[in-house]
């Protein structure tokens, strides 16, 4: 497949932005928590699930997105939100618990909601899957050609919601693409200890829909497979189930000792860091020189810094605002 250069560049830029965002969040997360790690302390208290290494699953669909397309993501949502173009300032502000955040500080890092682009996520495994089905149903009612993407981890693929959602979407031939981010672990539980078969994409046959495995953590491979599935959905030919092998470079959440993955595994994983590999490839293929990549990095890092500055300069909500927004 011939991929337009601007798509390759766009994916690279977005990967850089995501990685930088995650790195900076990580730094600020630990800022006031160490030396004695206290989860409740610091600029960003609470759990923090970062997606460094999983950039390809997010950026590969990006060039195929259209305005109004819905995405539901997981407890590990930043990469997908950034790839969809969720306002980075407001997103950062939400993560820092500020009044200017996407949810005025009420939702936090696992509960990022945006109207335009149409994004949501959740802290409960599998919870977003039926929501994506409902978004697709709404698109059918409204006669738009929008589609819904449902992201979930390979661990989530054993939750009942997986089965019910995909059956519904297949039955009603709805424009949904189910995207399984297979990073091989659900917290400490390896996929082989949770899943009776090797590849969730093979479960598509239980619903009579296409199932495609992307076996490399590579934005181009994701781009191709997601492009076909998204087109298919947009054409009205129904849902697909895509499984993408990817890597969670860091712990499950920040502070996780990650003792359940051995050093060899982690070393191999770090060797194949998708950002490095993709940058190398773009250089090798003459698409983006090292200098161009550096320029991109600087530009993207600046965007991230701006978002963090916006967030840090924003006020906290008034405590009694806790009572607002239960009901419309």
């Amino acid at each position, binding site marked *: 497949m011939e991929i337009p250069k601007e798509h390759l560049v766009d994916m690279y830029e977005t990967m850089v932005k995501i990685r930088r965002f995650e790195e900076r969040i990580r730094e600020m997360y630990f800022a006031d928590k160490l030396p004695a790690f206290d989860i409740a302390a610091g600029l960003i208290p609470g759990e923090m699930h970062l997606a460094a290494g999983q950039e390809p699953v997010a950026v590969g669909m990006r060039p195929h997105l259209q305005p109004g397309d*819905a995405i*539901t993501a997981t407890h590990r949502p930043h990469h997908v939100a950034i790839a969809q173009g969720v306002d980075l300032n407001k997103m950062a502000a939400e993560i820092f618990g500020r009044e200017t*955040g*996407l*949810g*005025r*500080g*009420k*939702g936090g890092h696992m*509960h990022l*909601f*945006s*109207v335009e682009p*149409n994004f*949501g996520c*959740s802290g*409960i495994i599998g*919870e977003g*899957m*039926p*929501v*994506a*089905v*409902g*978004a*697709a*149903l*709404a*698109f059918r*009612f*409204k006669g738009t050609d929008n589609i*819904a993407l449902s992201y979930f981890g390979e661990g989530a693929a054993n939750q*009942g*919601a997986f*089965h*019910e*959602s995909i*059956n*519904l979407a297949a*039955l009603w031939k709805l424009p949904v693409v189910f995207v399984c981010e297979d990073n091989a672990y659900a917290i400490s539980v390896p996929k082989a200890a949770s899943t009776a078969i090797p590849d969730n994409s093979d479960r598509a046959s239980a619903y009579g829909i296409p199932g495609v495995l992307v076996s490399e953590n590579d934005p181009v491979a994701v781009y191709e497979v997601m492009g076909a599935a998204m087109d298919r959905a947009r054409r009205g030919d129904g849902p697909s189930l895509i499984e993408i092998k990817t890597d969670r470079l860091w712990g499950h959440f920040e502070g996780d000792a990650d003792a359940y993955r051995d050093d060899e595994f982690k070393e191999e994983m770090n060797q194949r860091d998708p950002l490095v590999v993709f940058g190398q490839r773009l250089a090798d293929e003459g698409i983006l020189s090292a200098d161009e990549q550096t320029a991109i990095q600087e530009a993207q890092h600046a965007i991230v810094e701006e978002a963090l500055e916006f967030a840090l300069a924003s006020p906290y909500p008034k405590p009694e605002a806790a009572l*607002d*927004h*239960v*009901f*419309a």
Partner: protein
Amino acid sequence: MTTAATDRKLTMQKAIAEGIFQEMDVDPSVFVMGEDVGVYGGIFGSTEGLLAKFGPDRIIDTPISETGFIGAAVGAAINGMRPIVELMFVDFFGVCMDQIYNNMAKIHYFSGGNIKVPVVLTTAVGGGYSDAGQHSQTLWGMFAHLPGMKVVVPSSAYDAKGLMISAIRDDNPVVYMFHKGALGLGWMVNNPRATEPVPEEPYEVPIGEARIAREGTDVTVVTIGLSVHKALDAAETLESQGVSAEVLDLRSLVPLDRQAVINSVKKTQRLVVVDEDYQSFGMTGEIITTAVEGAFEYLDAPPVRVATPDVPIPYSHGLEEWTLPSTERIVAAAAGVASS
């Protein structure tokens, strides 16, 4: 028109279906999803007649996938629709509660008010016909305990239609519970009070306002759902015993019309709370506490509860009858508190 309207009597079941019908007729964003809502018309008739008028695209029979389709209602609501989604019996909430309480009820809050989730979740509640412990519960206390959803329980036809229309127009998630024994179904004994004149035109009954179902001076009986009728029956018996009971139909638990409870208790100075839900950690404790908080000095005697004891609802008729609140138990409780 108005005269004709008030002359026409409807069962609660027909009133519910009419409310949905009329809103669907004017608002294309309203649709219905659930098990057996199509050709069957809803196991309890809540969607009767809708398929014929609106077709299978707007009246959607679903698989037995409550997490899937209730979650889909949430997704559709976020994206501009106003779904009415049926959980056939409230007793089934356990297979899909995450979508209800963690998702439907919380997204508006998490989004800082940016995203509205106008879902109406209809569900049948209540026992009294030997359907045993997985098909006879009301569980409204539990729904009311969890923030983010309105909880509406009409007791009769007029309110049922008006509350349904209000629920559909509400921008919040509304759990709309109908008591099987008040629906006026042909195949179940019903309290005849639930069938009453219902205007033909659409109208709203505000969610969150209790209704004084009967005025009285000696004791306040606060309740909801089918028990309203049992309380009214009890009030007649009590009257013959010289006790004047005021019956307050809460109509919704969220929002809860606390002021109506307090006002009535201030007037009668005595309180009985009747609840078909499990007794402990539920509605009876909340209403009594509301009265204690708002009318402590007025209370002449400790309030009394008449509720389903903390046992799974048993199957055998005699066991069940003994378990659920009855008119006799209400009479005894009210007479007792009135004379103390």
